[in-house]
């Protein structure tokens, strides 16, 4: 009689404090560094044997070893699959990071970006062999111009902050062309850190504009700061509190009357796409984060893409290169001498920009169309307002709604509980969520900025709302260790950032041989 196979039964609950021999915990594997796994004589690729011939390296041939570990393909694959399992991702859960627009990344975009006709093109191939690539850039540029109502777009900036730099360089070039030395840039206190950093990289000093009680730019204070030395205002709209700057047309008029330009940080364009055109607001330059509004994947921190749209006033100064449609075919203008009447301020990057991101963004735009993109903005705004309205009793919002695509809470509801914004965020990890953006914007105490995006269902939002409500109630009820020791259920508990910064260890080194 076969007695080998037995059904498993649930039995008693396991002991959570069990220490395993391996250090692994079920599906959660500890994984050493690549460098701790290598062995000489192992390799993850098979290459033909080199020929016997003299080299042409002169006396610069490498005499030493590099120190790279030798690993086979299965080891490398397992290593990175195990690492991947230690990451939170949009594909695995809601990712409500305010100001980051963590929306679904369609896989069609990935598939199309990998077509050899786009992915396997050299940037300096003859123009006749890349007509389809230039057509794609030109088509995407057209969509961006129509969606923003702006007459020109620079495609080459590689990320949002790079786009900001592009915009401010164009402003500086325009001022130079007018023979004016204007050195002050006004930016709200709530601005992204990139705004002042970018202005400084262009030699501008940054003068903060205070906010009013409604969380918007204080128009009177702005007007009081304008003067003949003001080059530009840099304003995010919707702003970093998730609010539309309702005086924006007035602000534009005021800065233009004072001889300055209006740079808009377009990080939050997802709230407006298809419904509001920045060109109708009096903006002179705005970057568009293709990795936010147009769903190119964030990839753990990049690569991004940050095309910049320009008004008529700044368009002539847009950087090289750019694509032109000559009727008989597309061409790439790479030098001042070919730029006609335009006077480009220079070049921001080698080659022509983030082509791989352009393919993905255009695929996204074509999929949504004019109607779908408008729906994107509406659903993004609706979802954020739904979260705001549903939690207004349990958490504390510094500004009343409606908000735009993200909603802001502060830590007033945690006052006296012993739980901080950081603790609250870490407790969300235990509940299976990536935390919202915390401590930004700086103008709100203990800020918590939630951007659900349009790709979350109502059921998903309802679950988030009920979890946040429960956490708020637990904090108020004095269940403090739930928060201060969180996260309990993550691959790592809280990490010692002080130690990392005091004695930086920025690379692996082999153990010293005795």
């Amino acid at each position, binding site marked *: 009689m076969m007695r080998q196979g037995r059904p498993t039964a649930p039995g008693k609950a396991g002991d959570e404090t069990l220490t395993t021999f391996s250090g692994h915990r079920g599906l959660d594997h500890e994984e050493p560094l690549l460098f701790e796994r290598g062995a000489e004589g192992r390799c993850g690729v098979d290459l033909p044997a080199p020929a016997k011939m003299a080299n042409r390296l002169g006396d610069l041939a490498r005499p030493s070893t590099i120190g790279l570990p030798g690993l086979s393909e299965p080891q490398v694959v397992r290593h990175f699959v195990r690492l991947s399992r230690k990451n939170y991702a949009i594909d695995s859960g809601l990712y409500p990071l305010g100001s980051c627009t963590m929306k679904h990344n369609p896989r069609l975009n990935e598939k199309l970006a990998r077509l050899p006709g786009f992915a396997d093109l050299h940037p300096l191939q003859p123009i006749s062999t890349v007509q389809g690539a230039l057509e794609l850039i030109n088509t995407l540029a057209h969509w961006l111009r129509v969606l923003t109502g702006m007459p020109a777009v620079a495609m080459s900036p590689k990320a949002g902050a790079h786009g900001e730099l592009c915009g401010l360089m164009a402003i500086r070039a325009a001022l130079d062309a007018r023979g004016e030395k204007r050195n002050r840039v006004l930016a709200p206190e709530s601005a992204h850190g990139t705004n002042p950093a970018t202005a400084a990289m262009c030699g501008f000093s940054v003068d903060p504009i205070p906010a009013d009680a409604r969380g918007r730019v204080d128009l009177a204070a702005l007007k009081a700061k304008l003067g003949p030395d003001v080059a530009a205002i840099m304003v995010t709209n919707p702003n970093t509190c998730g609010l539309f700057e309702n005086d924006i047309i007035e602000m534009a008029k005021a800065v233009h009357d004072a001889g300055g330009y209006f740079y808009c940080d377009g990080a939050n364009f997802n709230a407006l796409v298809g419904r509001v055109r920045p060109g109708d607001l009096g903006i002179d330059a705005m970057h568009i984060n293709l990795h936010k509004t147009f769903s190119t994947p964030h990839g753990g921190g990049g690569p991004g893409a940050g095309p910049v749209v320009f008004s008529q006033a700044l368009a002539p100064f847009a950087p090289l290169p750019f694509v032109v449609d000559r009727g008989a075919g597309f061409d790439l203008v790479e030098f001042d001498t070919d730029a006609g009447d335009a006077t480009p301020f220079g070049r921001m990057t080698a080659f022509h920009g983030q082509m791989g991101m352009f393919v993905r963004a255009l695929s996204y735009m074509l999929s949504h169309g004019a109607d779908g993109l408008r729906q994107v903005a509406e659903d993004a705004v609706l979802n954020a307002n739904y979260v705001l309205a549903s939690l207004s009793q349990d958490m504390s919002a510094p500004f009343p709604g409606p908000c735009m695509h993200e909603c802001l809470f502060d830590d007033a509801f945690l006052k006296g509980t012993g739980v901080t914004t950081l603790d609250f965020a870490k407790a969300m990890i235990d509940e299976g969520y990536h935390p919202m953006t915390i401590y930004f914007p700086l103008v709100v105490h203990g800020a918590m900025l939630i951007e659900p995006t349009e790709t979350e269902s109502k059921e998903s939002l309802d679950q988030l709302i009920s979890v946040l409500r429960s956490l708020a109630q637990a904090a108020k009820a004095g269940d403090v260790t739930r928060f201060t020791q969180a996260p309990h259920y993550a691959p790592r508990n809280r990490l010692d950032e002080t130690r990392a910064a*005091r004695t930086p260890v920025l690379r692996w080194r082999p153990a010293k041989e005795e």
Partner: protein
Amino acid sequence: MTKIFYTQDHEWIRLEGDVGTVGISNYAQEQLGDIVFVELPQPGTKTGRGDEIAVVESVKAASEIYAPVSGEVIEANSTLEGAPVTVNEAAESDGWFFKIRISDQAELAGLMDAAAYQAFVEGLA
């Protein structure tokens, strides 16, 4: 008797003759949290009152340190390079930043004494 003065930016300066020893106040180190790095001026650096002269970094913040008086830096506290934690442990003694030869004693008149600074800090809460 040594005299100690404070600035509104939370630096302190202790006088010995025409030399002042400068650091950040205990209140300031508490506000900054765990200090991870201090960038100190080179001896010989000449500074005006209120100029940026050093930088102190915690994990999530960085603050400029302004010279409380004009003068020439004559010594920097090199122990802070290897042990920035000293600022947290002893902000107003071993955690000093640099010594400065004061060029104009009259500038000291604009600073607060310990009691005035204490009142100033209490007013910030």
